[in-house]
């Protein structure tokens, strides 16, 4: 009987070198990730645990991203607390300025994520790491205090659901639509306590950024973690970042899966997840015409250079609709610089969109674009729960960057194909 990719990655991070779905095992991760919201509690718990020395300060990465740059005095103090914690325990990996960004987009750039790796993060979207043939697993603050103190944490090894990707995506279909379609099919608990594993010939038609968009929302289906197969695109990516920690994994031909599903990319259309659930995926046509007050293009998986290029393609030479706030948030400083080199920032500014520093910002209702009662946003982010981006009576529609940018021009939810015949992905 063979093993899934998840079982193989978990196995290489146990003392015994063995992990099978359903068993409780003790794991030692390659990277432990804290941010400025989860980190404060972790620091407090480490004090209470009486920790004098960390298990391995090289493995700890601290990223100020949620309320960064600080929105108020309290936020500045939280970031300061994280910075001082890093200094006290000799943690070199502290990112707030210079080379920085949203944690899940930043980690791969820094060479902290790659094939076979295991990343524990005090943030539910740590599963984004799956795009690079790694396992990212989200935890709370106290669990990560435990692993920072001892190097170990118990987990139940999840059984996996295999998603076989086939075909080529259409003009306006992106990774976002793949995951919105899957969650619409299986529900927000469709992968509860399971892992999602992606592979198949269709993978070659999705770049790393698009795979990150898929992996990022695995948790929105309830998944513990997510792993994509490794391919040439992944190897090329890590040749630039320097990941050498672990070896790539592939599933055994007789691996045991809970379920095997096929997604034909050719049959997908751009989807919009209507509030208040990421599982409410519907066609653009079914919600077209709804007035939006805000367009938000950013977050840990959809503030990539691919997303910014898609948005810029729509907004080039256009003007945004009156009374619509359009906020573009490059996920990292490297993406910001790349967008500047390509002239994308100029396109956004000329159209009337604002470009923010990298930050988690309004995605979680923190700052930089909060919604008032009754306001509606279309957003490339990952959650549209009640009140997610602001007032409890505001609404969020989730969509890919092409679809979100089209709404910026018209002020209503709009099919991007109606903006111009030349737009979208090149389809052969």
């Amino acid at each position: 009987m063979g093993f899934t990719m998840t079982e193989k990655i978990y196995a290489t991070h146990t003392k015994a070198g063995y992990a099978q779905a359903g068993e409780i095992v003790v794991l030692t991760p390659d990277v432990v990730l804290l941010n400025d919201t989860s980190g404060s509690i972790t620091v407090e718990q480490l004090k209470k645990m009486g920790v004098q020395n960390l298990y391995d300060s090289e493995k700890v990465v601290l990223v100020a991203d949620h309320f960064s740059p600080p929105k108020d005095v309290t936020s500045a103090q939280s970031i300061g607390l994280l910075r001082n914690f890093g200094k006290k325990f000799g943690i070199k990996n502290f990112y707030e300025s210079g080379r920085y960004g949203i944690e899940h987009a930043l980690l791969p750039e820094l060479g902290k994520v790659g094939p076979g790796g295991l990343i524990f993060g005090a943030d539910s979207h740590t599963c984004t790491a799956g795009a690079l043939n790694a396992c990212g697993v989200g935890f709370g603050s106290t669990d990560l205090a435990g692993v920072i103190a001892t190097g170990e944490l118990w987990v139940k090894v999840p059984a996996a659901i295999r998603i076989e990707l086939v075909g080529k995506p259409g003009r306006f279909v992106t990774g976002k639509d793949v995951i919105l379609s899957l969650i619409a099919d299986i529900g927000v608990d469709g992968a509860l306590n399971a892992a999602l594993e992606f592979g198949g010939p269709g993978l070659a038609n999705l770049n790393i950024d698009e795979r990150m968009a898929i992996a990022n929302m695995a948790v929105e289906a309830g998944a513990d973690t997510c792993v994509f197969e490794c391919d040439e695109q992944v190897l090329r990516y890590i040749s630039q970042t320097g990941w050498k920690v672990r070896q790539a994994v592939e599933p055994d031909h007789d691996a045991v899966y809970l379920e095997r599903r096929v997604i034909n990319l050719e049959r997908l259309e751009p989807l919009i997840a209507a509030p208040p659930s990421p599982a409410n995926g519907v066609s653009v046509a079914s919600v077209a015409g709804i007035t939006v007050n805000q367009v938000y293009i950013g977050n840990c998986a959809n503030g990539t250079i691919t997303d910014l290029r898609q948005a810029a393609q729509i907004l080039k030479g256009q003007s945004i609709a009156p009374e619509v706030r359009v906020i573009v948030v490059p996920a990292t400083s490297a993406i910001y610089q790349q967008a500047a080199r390509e002239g994308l920032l100029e396109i956004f500014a000329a159209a009337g969109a604002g470009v923010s520093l990298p930050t988690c910002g309004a995605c979680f209702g923190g700052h930089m674009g909060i919604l008032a009662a009754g306001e509606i946003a279309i957003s490339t982010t990952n959650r549209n729960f009640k009140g997610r981006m602001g007032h409890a009576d505001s609404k969020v529609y989730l969509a890919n960057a092409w679809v979100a940018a089209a709404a910026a021009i018209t002020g209503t939810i709009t099919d991007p194909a109606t903006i111009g015949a030349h737009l979208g992905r090149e389809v052969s």
Partner: protein
Amino acid sequence: MQPQTTIHLFGDHIDTDVILPGKYLNLYTPEDLGPHCMEGLDPTFSTRVQVGDVIVAGKNFGTGSSREHAAIAIKSIGIACIVADSFARIFYRNAINIGLPVFECPELVAAVKNGDRVTVELAQGVFKVKGVHFQAKPFPPYVQGIIEAGGLVPFVRTQLLKN
């Protein structure tokens, strides 16, 4: 004999954004978080809860964000425990780690109404509502060890002292 307390009933897929909205994530002490508990669904919730009351909910309670702030807020206003059909993985771990008891007991969830009175035997996972006894599912052995230690902080502290 334990005193009777009140059940606060919630539905399926209660996410941590409504339990503790994101704008408060720059806070982290129980005193600061408690007043905002369940604010996304019911801004008066924290003022109505009496110490010892019980939250009962459907499937996948605590889904979404990993924010431990949500579990801390619930514990800090005096909720004795949460009984649900099922929990989201991270929330379940967070609750156990900070010493907020969480029980899976679909039979109880199906039988009770909002405002029902309940008697709770935390150590045994036994509940009595309108004369009917309910027994929650037992914890996995590893989890039981953390509960018996009083949460992950004392569990790790003991482990570090041993080493």
